[in-house]
């Protein structure tokens, strides 16, 4: 692998944190100064062997609550399939870190590790907590500038809060993402405790502003190129029974709006990365179908 193009503008500069040969390619972690989040951010990038000779499509993976860039790359077992299909996988962190905001580390489902992929409008979060812009704009630019990517071929997937992130990215940007899938996504955050806590904190009490980040609401008004959404959900997921995920609400809207979804309720599986590991190949294949079309 060539060394990253460190001679780009300084704000685009990347620092390699780690690099490990993996599935014939490389699993790397980089650090950079984010303009959007105004802090140092780490992200993981898997470069398949094909990236040594040509441009590859990119799948963005959005992790769930409490995760860093590490969880997915160490637990999901995505690299073999990514190598097979020639897909670069970019897995960013889940929130700004070390911004010194009061209360940012107080709870596991708000603040650090819980950015919810929104652009906060409320103090004290609005300066740093701009994960939506980070993952849809800054990070893709950075990736395209530093890696052999095909900027027109990107897709998005994620788990839990990241599944919510993936769905809203696709629904808010018709045509931008060639494919979308999710594992146990928070489908209707306005209606669940996690979402209500996060949205009221980041977006304020006006619920109408929440709608812009709610997959179920966004699906109801979606208009754009045909989507093909693959969702896997563990039937024994404690957060499903705790009504944090609410997939039925999304399915009802998609059925009504004729947005194609295949939703698979996997018996016996919980909310963990063991569940993700079990079905990640199906998802990468799903992305490859559209990314390599």
């Amino acid at each position, binding site marked *: 692998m060539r060394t990253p193009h460190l001679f780009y503008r300084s704000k685009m500069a990347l620092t390699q944190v780690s690099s490990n040969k993996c599935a014939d390619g490389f699993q790397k972690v980089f650090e950079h100064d984010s303009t959007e989040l105004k802090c140092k951010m780490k992200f993981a990038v898997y470069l398949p062997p094909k990236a040594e000779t040509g441009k590859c499509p990119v799948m963005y993976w959005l992790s769930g609550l409490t995760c860093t860039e590490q969880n997915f790359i160490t637990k999901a077992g995505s690299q073999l399939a990514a190598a097979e299909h020639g897909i670069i996988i970019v897995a960013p962190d889940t929130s700004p870190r070390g911004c010194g905001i009061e209360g940012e580390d107080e709870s596991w489902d708000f603040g650090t590790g819980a950015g919810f992929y929104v652009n906060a409008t409320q103090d004290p979060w609005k300066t740093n907590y701009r994960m939506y812009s980070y993952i849809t704009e800054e990070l893709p630019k950075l990736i395209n500038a530093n890696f052999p990517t095909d900027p027109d071929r990107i897709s998005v997937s994620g788990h839990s809060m990241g599944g919510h992130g993936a769905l809203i990215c696709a629904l808010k940007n018709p045509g931008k993402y060639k494919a979308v899938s999710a594992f146990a996504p928070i489908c209707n955050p306005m209606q669940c405790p996690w979402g209500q806590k996060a949205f009221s904190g980041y977006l304020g009490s006006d619920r109408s502003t929440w709608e812009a980040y709610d997959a179920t609401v966004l699906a109801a008004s979606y208009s754009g190129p045909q989507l*093909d959404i693959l969702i896997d959900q563990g039937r024994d997921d404690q957060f499903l029974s705790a009504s944090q995920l609410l997939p039925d609400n999304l399915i009802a809207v998609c059925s009504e709006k004729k947005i194609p*979804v*295949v939703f698979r309720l996997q*018996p016996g599986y919980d909310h963990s990365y063991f569940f993700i590991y079990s079905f990640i190949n199906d998802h990468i294949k799903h992305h490859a*179908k559209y990314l390599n*079309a």
Partner: protein
Amino acid sequence: FGVRTRNRLQGKVAEMENFAGHLEEIFLTVEENFGRREQHLEQHYNDVLQTLSQRYEDRAAGLEEEKKNKLEALYRQLLACGQALDASKELIETAQEIYRSQDKRLFLKVREFAKEETDLTLSTPLEFNTPLADLSDVKTLMDSINVVPAPSAPVINPQMPNSATQTSLRVCWSLFSDDSVEYYELYYRPVHDKVCAWFTVTKVKVKETHCKVTDLLPNAQYELWVTATNTTGISPASEKALYMTVPSPPVIKQRECTSCPEAALIRWESGNTNPIDSYTVELSEVETDGTESHLTESIVAVPTCQCLIQLQPGRCYVISVRAVNVGGPSNRSEVITVSTTGTFFHLLGETAHPCLSISEDGFTMFYGDEELPISAMAFDANAFTRCVAVLGDLIPVRGKHYWEVEVDDGTEFRIGVSYEDTERSSYLGANNTSWCMRHILTPTRHKYEFLHKGWSPDLRITVNPVRIGVALDYDKGTLSFFNVDLKQHLHTFHCHFQNYVHPCFGLDNPGALTVHNGIAAPE
């Protein structure tokens, strides 16, 4: 000018040389013919002389014999006369003696001696017994010197390849020598295992040494023999030869042919009532402009009425069949056009549940509203008895297959694959011999199941597919379902199919399904 003259002269010389050569040839032929004729005559005269000398010897020997017999007879008569004379003299002496005696009564007794009389007629006839000389055979021999001999038996040739048709035979024969023949008579009759009285011998009179016999039965064996006749007489019959007419062309069973991108399975009917030796399948590729290319391939010695043919994907072929026996190949059957764009199959009508009717074109199946009473249902032995279903006749090739099914989202259906012997009294997907996608209408929603052994994963599909793609990959061991309109993958079964599978289609409530065939599989 000189050159021209020389050339002309040279030409003339060549011409004359040619003519001289020709004359020489004629001379030789004439000489040869006369030589042969001479030899022939000499042979005949020798025959006549031999016959005459034989006759002379026979007659001379006869006369000698007669002379001997006559002399012997006369001699015996002479001896007898001498003896009679001696006896008479003795008798006279005895009589004189008695006469001189005293007793005259004794003399009276002597009179009785004198009663014996001597036969004085000749014991042999005076004439020679001259038998009539029968010279008719000599006459025939003499006559035959001037007439041609009757021909010898002609030699009938064995059947030549490609000389027969469905209803005719071309028969050839020849002669050993240069007999002169006025005409031939060809006799023929069909040969049957069981000799039937009404198959009488037919006779044809021909001038040539060949004959085309017509109005025959196809794929039948005939016994033929030939005689040659000239003014002198008729030859003995030739040996009997066996000829065979070619079969009628087979009939391709269009509804029972099936194909995929790599192969086609062609099935046909013999077209003949009696057995056929083998079949030849001929295929040629149809170019994109519609013209049929030259014959690209033929598969010979196919023993049964079906043939699996390896083909190239994405082409178009026309395929025909010929029936072959020792007489040769039949005419081509009607052709079948096979496109290797996708998988193509028909429904196996005999597997259809009695409540399932199939459209004229064979690709749409209906489950009608009206309930048939069980008693009115005629069950084929191979038909589904509970699940209103039917199987498709998929080509037995372990490659990739793809077909599409058009459904109505108000119809409850089951589509997928099953082993050929899947239980007919069971529902599709309820056993371990079938795999299917099932659509169920619940009061609140459309439910989709992907059933095998009665179990389905729990999944939701938000857009009801109305055209379902079914992709079977034997090598990968997968059976996948797609929403064709959305190119959406719905489900994949993973199973290494041990046996060949057939597409299966079932309706759980009144409605219709249409199979779309010959479609290229999506990537």
